[in-house]
């Protein structure tokens, strides 16, 4: 009995459980630290479990529609309303579930990691509650089928992220990074709301499927499209508007940065959802595809070139995050550009999209791992400056191993997951336009070069006197890094199975706009 209540209401519980967890964390914090830590871990584990259950349900029975507040969850169109969705409807398709599972995994690893890394700091009640609320923001953004609801969860995501970036208050530098992140996110949110107002003014509905069905692509719709793409690309850290990324990622605690990356990827999901589902058939795909490709190539190139001269480890990794976002944009952009003719799509468009989407989860894993290793180094040595670090390989064996796994994965070296998705992107983009593929390979080589430099300056070399008593990081931090490292290796060894189970349905769900509309509006 309980199982099918949970199964039937899993989209709602996916958000209600972490929200309840976040609201109750300050209460448990008042009892004692360990009780609160146990509660937070329990809430994160429960969210991960629900997202896996929801994932299994959606991957077996197709898109799941959930109406909030109706007499029965699947009653999305009230009988006497002439085919109009009235309430808020969650349309959880394979793409949303893919993003939800990757977000929950990273969030669980990050919580495990920060149990120890934040042990010495004050204000842990707020820290853990905001961590859960960031996960709520991400899960809400990826699962919702209502654009105003998407805006509300975008705001939760931004505010929780800004507060967490500004967590280390004492020197004011982090607060400046947090302020920059908050201003950019609020501006992005207002642009999203402006386009929601334009769409509502014309079609009097907030449901994505309903708008897609009524879309006539007037001048106002084009303005709304530009606003949405610009705002969400700004939040995802694509190049022309990536100025907040290095400050926010380097100033935040490392555990928070790993989750910030997943939050940016949720905005990237927003770009894809707007391009494929909200506008879909109305667009002429070649121009939009090429715009996304140019954004991608710019992000790749500028990200890696800005990363080479960096001294601070986390700033360097932040710029690499921007360049890796370029790969995802490139992959899905090529898929978008050839969405028009089916045989080109079958030839390479679909593999390009699958490569881009597969890269989202890979990037979340190995970039999260890299940031956690940087945090481990900072936890032991207290500095992130590459010139001051050195010779840590002797004492921090496990962190060195995790760093190697992460660095090789980001550079796209065979046994790891970065290689699997980059190979799919190289092959398919080569058939579309060889120059783009060459640029992608060059950027990958530059990434490898910069990470070899970082590896050398941190771990190699003689044991420095001031790091004499440095020893390995405690257990939970290693466990958090271990989960991500295990998945990085696992996805690298069995890429084809992962693609068939999780990525191909996600790419298919993203392309299939009519299926999306039909599942919500019941085939009218």
């Amino acid at each position: 009995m309980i199982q099918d209540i949970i199964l039937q209401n899993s989209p709602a519980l996916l958000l209600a459980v972490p929200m309840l967890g976040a609201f109750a964390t300050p209460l448990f914090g008042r009892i004692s630290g360990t009780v609160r830590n146990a509660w937070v871990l329990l809430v994160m584990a429960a969210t991960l479990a629900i997202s896996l259950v929801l994932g299994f349900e959606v991957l077996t029975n197709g898109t799941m529609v959930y109406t909030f507040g109706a007499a029965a969850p699947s009653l999305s169109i009230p009988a006497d309303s002439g085919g109009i969705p009235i309430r808020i409807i969650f349309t959880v398709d394979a793409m949303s579930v893919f993003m939800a599972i990757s977000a929950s995994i990273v969030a669980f690893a990050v919580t495990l990691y920060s149990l120890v890394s934040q042990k010495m700091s004050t204000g842990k009640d707020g820290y853990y509650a905001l961590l859960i609320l960031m996960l709520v923001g991400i899960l809400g953004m990826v699962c919702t089928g209502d654009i105003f609801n998407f805006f509300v969860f975008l705001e939760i995501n931004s505010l929780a992220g800004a507060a967490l970036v500004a967590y280390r208050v004492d020197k004011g530098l982090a607060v400046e990074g947090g302020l920059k992140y908050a201003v950019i996110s609020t501006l992005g949110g207002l642009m999203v709301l402006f386009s929601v107002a334009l769409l509502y003014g014309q079609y009097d509905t907030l449901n994505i499927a309903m708008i897609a069905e009524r879309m006539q692509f007037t001048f106002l719709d084009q303005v709304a499209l530009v606003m949405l793409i610009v705002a969400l690309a700004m939040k995802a850290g694509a190049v022309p508007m990536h100025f907040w990324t290095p400050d926010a990622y380097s100033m935040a605690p490392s555990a928070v940065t790993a989750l910030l990356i997943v939050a940016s990827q949720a905005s990237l999901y927003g770009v894809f959802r707007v391009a494929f589902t909200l506008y879909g058939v109305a667009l002429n795909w070649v121009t939009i595809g090429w715009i996304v490709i140019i954004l991608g190539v710019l992000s790749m190139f500028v990200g890696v070139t800005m990363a080479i001269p960096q001294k601070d480890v986390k700033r360097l990794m932040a710029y690499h995050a921007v360049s890796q976002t370029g790969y995802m944009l490139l992959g899905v952009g090529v898929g978008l550009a050839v969405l028009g003719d089916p045989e080109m799509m079958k030839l390479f468009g679909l593999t390009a999209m699958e490569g881009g989407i597969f890269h989202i989860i890979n990037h979340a894993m190995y970039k999260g791992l890299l940031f956690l290793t940087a945090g481990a180094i900072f936890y032991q040595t207290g500095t992130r400056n590459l010139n001051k670090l050195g010779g840590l390989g002797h004492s921090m064996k496990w962190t060195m191993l995790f760093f190697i796994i992460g660095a090789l994965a980001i550079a796209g070296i065979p046994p790891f997951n970065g290689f699997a998705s980059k190979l799919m992107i190289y092959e398919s983009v080569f058939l579309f336009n060889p120059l783009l593929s060459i640029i992608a390979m060059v950027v990958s080589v530059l990434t490898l070069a910069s990470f070899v430099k970082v590896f050398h300056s941190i771990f190699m070399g003689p044991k420095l006197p001031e790091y004499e008593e440095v020893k390995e990081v405690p257990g939970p931090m290693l466990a958090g890094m271990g989960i991500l490292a295990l998945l990085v290796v696992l996805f690298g060894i069995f890429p084809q199975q992962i693609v068939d189970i999780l990525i191909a349905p996600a790419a298919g769900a993203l392309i299939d706009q009519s299926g999306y509309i039909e599942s919500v509006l019941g085939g009218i």
Partner: protein
Amino acid sequence: MDMSRIVRTTANVLLPFILIYGFYIVMHGHLTPGGGFQGGAVIATGIVLLFAAYSYTDLKEKVTLGALKNSETLGLLLFIFTALLALTAGFAFFGNWLVNGGAIFGDMVAFGPNPGDLNTGGVIPIMNLAVGIEVLGAMGVIILSMLSGIQEDA
């Protein structure tokens, strides 16, 4: 700088009316314009009036940060539990499981203008109350935190 005796007495006189008016807006949310957020904000102005009249230091013990945080968490938990209870009553999440049910707030309402009966609205008045408490606590905590922020500088 301390407020004069006159300001403090007017504040004492005004405060009950502000609280009653705010509570009225919260509880009549489904009948007259207003609701949880607006009513909570009105009650929060009562707190600001108190802090304006009396200085922050001697009020710190009476209107503590902890009490406001408690009221905020209580409001939120009440809100999410009324929404979760819809699941047990067989509705989807956030379903209105009290409407037209005859129990508390369950009277039926026909279409068209009517003078308004407080005992209608199903879950809405409960959620109004929950949000009112939450907004009251949230605004209070924001005001107190910012005041304590200035306090350290001064």
